[in-house]
């Protein structure tokens, strides 16, 4: 009889991914000369947890690989095997393979069994010479019986089957007996395991499916309450077991003061700043780290995991509430304000409340940028090894929040900027010494909020951009350049398609297929990127992004009977034209003269085929847009006002329409379209160039 475990797969995928991330950052933080015992334990536990869970759910490929990895890590933590760079590299590779395997199970990505066997062999090679001592150590460990107490989730239809499955999993740890099996759901289960050596592992297996897990040794009671510290967070996300500090405290008290140096705390600042001082001044480490631990634990306890779709649903519903209010307001506006004073007051209050509610719910979509930043230590480490450079990555402002949707889409551009800085910016150690710099290059990654935008800076203390070389390359590519160009204009050249100044094309960068894509991606998000650079000092790329993709500040304009929203970020100005300002070019394309310059004109009602719109230019309004330094003017009937609008995808139920970025719902409940300023401006400019 088999029990359908597939309902727990999403939980497993989420947790396994978390464990893999934790494993990576722990491995990267290990001090090879004097590894901290608690860190080694933590790494071991991540592997162990994945193994147990993968086995339970029948993902044998992951279970097998983690089994080997776990064995190796176990030996390392027992001091039978010394840490070395190749060993950590192998572990990191194994972690990557596991990550791919996870993706295979989750998304159906193509699997690569060869990679798994290659890395398995490599891991096994480390432990072959050390078979003998292991026997001695296991026989020395204490065996004791263990009683596990736990509750099974009420959502499971057949609890007895689930318990049976659990017992089978637990039999790896020793012979099992069910001591009490409640007939009513929500009552305590008790399972006894004979001579269990790995109480923690057993708890891990149970916690995957059950909650409120307590482990009690039947002789001494020394590991009682193991699961107690994790009780609170279990309620909504049963089985969320991470190697968090609370857990760690139980085991190795003596390592307390030191271990957060290498822990993946959200605030890595203290760790980074104390780099180099750590060994010399241990007291500092001791005073700084305990608060960091507590904060982390507190964060975990007060967090619940909620699906994005649920949040989006609430956002929609609140949007509806705001619209309903607008409808009531409209009806009430016809009523006498004196007679119906209380109604009007009530409506005003309702408006305030619903706006507040909307604003609060929007913050639920915001997540710390550390979700994106956390992967960069690995990127920098791998790349600096590959390039033979010594590089330190300094991250600050990880707690800066921005929209979840944005996080996913800035990872690639940021990765590219960092790789670029490392490859082209930072010099080789020899060159750096010759210049009198420290051999260790520095890459800084910094995020902060600035007046409604999020700014991310990627800096390096490398050679800086070479103005002369960029100009030479630009000429070779036939670009229009001259020596008197401003630095800013010269730096902007590296964002042109196919531009690369690398002398040697490496597999890291240098094919010139990067910076233009970076810029395009960032512009598509409504952001922009600026470069500052000084020869010999370094380069800094500054990316500015909107806080959220879900709301946009827009200007609503009328065209015929329709209204459209123009994102305010692209609007330079609006003005009333007269007929003389509009010129024809090439018979079709129109230009409008604005002061000294000619700008392509987009007649919105022609573009969108709207009837009953104004056709006389002198009666309407021109809105001047600028995207990336290129301009276009949009002709509309009238300006209606400024709004914050909630962005709705048109593609959910329909498809992409040229010139329209998204849809939104106006105060009266009708749908209005948000103009795609980026596409409109670039098409208008291209059309004018073609006509010229």
């Amino acid at each position, binding site marked *: 009889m088999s029990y359908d475990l597939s309902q727990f797969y999403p939980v497993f995928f989420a947790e396994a991914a978390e464990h893999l991330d934790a494993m990576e950052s722990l491995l990267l933080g290990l001090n090879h000369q004097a590894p901290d015992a608690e860190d080694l334990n933590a790494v071991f536990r991540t592997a162990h947890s994945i193994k147990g869970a993968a086995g339970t759910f029948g993902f044998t490929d992951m279970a097998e690989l983690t089994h080997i990895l776990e064995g190796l890590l176990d030996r390392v933590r027992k001091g039978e095997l010394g840490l070395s760079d190749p060993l950590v590299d192998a572990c990191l590779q194994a972690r990557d393979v596991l990550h791919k395997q996870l993706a295979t199970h989750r998304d159906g990505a193509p699997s690569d069994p060869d990679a798994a066997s290659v890395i398995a062999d490599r891991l096994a090679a480390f432990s072959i010479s050390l078979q003998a001592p292991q026997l001695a150590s296991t026989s020395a460990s204490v065996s004791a019986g263990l009683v596990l107490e736990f509750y099974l989730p009420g959502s499971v239809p057949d609890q007895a089957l689930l318990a049976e499955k659990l017992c089978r999993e637990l039999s790896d740890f020793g012979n099992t007996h069910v001591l009490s099996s409640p007939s009513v759901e929500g009552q305590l289960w008790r399972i006894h395991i004979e001579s269990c050596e790995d109480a923690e592992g057993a708890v891990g297996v149970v916690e995957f499916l059950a909650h409120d897990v307590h482990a009690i040794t039947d002789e001494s009671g020394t590991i009682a309450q193991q699961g107690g510290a994790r009780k609170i967070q279990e309620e909504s996300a049963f089985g969320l077991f991470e190697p968090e500090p609370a857990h760690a405290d139980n085991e190795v008290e003596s390592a307390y003061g030191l271990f957060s140096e290498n822990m993946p705390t959200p605030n890595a600042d203290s760790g980074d700043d104390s780099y180099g001082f750590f060994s010399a001044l241990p007291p500092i480490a001791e005073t700084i780290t305990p608060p960091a631990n507590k904060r982390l634990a507190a964060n975990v306890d007060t967090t619940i995991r909620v699906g994005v779709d649920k949040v989006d649903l609430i956002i*929609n519903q609140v949007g*509806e509430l705001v619209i309903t209010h607008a409808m009531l307001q409209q009806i009430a506006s016809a009523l006498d304000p004196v007679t119906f004073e209380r109604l009007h007051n009530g409506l005003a209050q309702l408006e305030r409340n619903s706006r507040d509610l909307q604003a609060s719910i929007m913050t639920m979509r915001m997540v710390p940028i550390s979700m994106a930043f956390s992967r960069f230590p690995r990127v920098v480490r791998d790349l600096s090894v590959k390039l033979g450079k010594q590089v330190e990555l300094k991250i600050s402002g990880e707690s800066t929040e921005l929209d979840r949707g944005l996080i996913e889409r800035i990872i690639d551009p940021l990765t590219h900027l960092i790789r670029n800085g490392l490859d082209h910016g930072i010099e080789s150690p020899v060159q750096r010494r010759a210049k009198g710099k420290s051999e260790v290059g520095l890459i800084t990654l910094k995020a902060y909020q600035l007046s409604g935008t999020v700014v991310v800076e990627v800096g390096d203390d490398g050679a800086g951009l070479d103005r002369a070389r960029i100009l030479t390359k630009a000429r070779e590519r036939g670009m229009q350049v001259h020596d008197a160009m401003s630095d800013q204009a010269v730096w902007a050249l590296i964002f042109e398609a196919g531009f690369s100044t690398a002398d040697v094309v490496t597999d890291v960068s240098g094919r010139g297929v990067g910076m233009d894509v970076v810029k395009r991606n960032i512009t598509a998000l409504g952001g922009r990127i600026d470069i500052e650079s000084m020869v010999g000092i370094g380069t800094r790329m500054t990316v500015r992004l909107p806080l959220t993709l879900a709301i946009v500040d827009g200007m609503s304009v009328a065209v015929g009977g329709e209204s459209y929203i123009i994102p305010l970020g692209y609007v330079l100005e609006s003005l009333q034209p007269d007929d003389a300002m509009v010129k024809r070019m090439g018979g079709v394309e129109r230009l409008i003269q604005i002061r000294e310059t000619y700008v392509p004109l987009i007649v919105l009602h022609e573009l*969108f085929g709207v009837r009953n719109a104004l056709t006389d230019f002198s009666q309407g309004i021109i809105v001047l847009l600028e995207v990336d330094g290129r301009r276009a003017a949009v002709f509309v009937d009238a300006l209606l006002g400024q709004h914050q609008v909630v962005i709705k995808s048109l593609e959910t*139920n329909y*498809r992409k329409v040229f*010139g329209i970025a998204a849809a939104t719902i106006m105060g009266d409940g*009708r749908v209005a379209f948000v103009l795609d300023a980026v596409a409109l401006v670039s098409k208008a400019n291209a059309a004018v160039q073609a006509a010229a």
Partner: protein
Amino acid sequence: MSKEALGHEYLSFLLGGEEYAIDILRVQEIRGYEAVTSIAHAPAFIKGVINLRGAIVPIIDLRIKFGIGLAEYTAFTVVIVLNVGERIVGIVVDAVSDVLTVHDEAIRPPPELTSTVDLRYITGLAMLDERMLILVDIEGLMLSSEMALVDESIS
């Protein structure tokens, strides 16, 4: 009694003088026609989009698409909101007539005649007393490229 013997439930609606029927499980709701926001460069039968409790839903007038019936919009014009392939779309028809149970044995294959609706999407004809129902695979029809509802790259 097995489900087969019970037959399937269909929602029938009128288009011109003809009676069509679609799988009731595809129907999310039926509502009155309301003003739409028209979409640039869309085919004439795509009237535009509406706000359906926060979702942006395209509205298709089947009367225009099939060239039958009078495409006028009155207080009695109805929209059938459908759930097709994870999408929500609304269709305008002359009138909704009935919810019917059609037994499989009552369904005849469609004749090989030219028809306003592409024969690929007609699953059969059902005779009920004096009425003839044209059974339409509404999901296939709505997601087909001729409806222009879905990006080519996706479909």
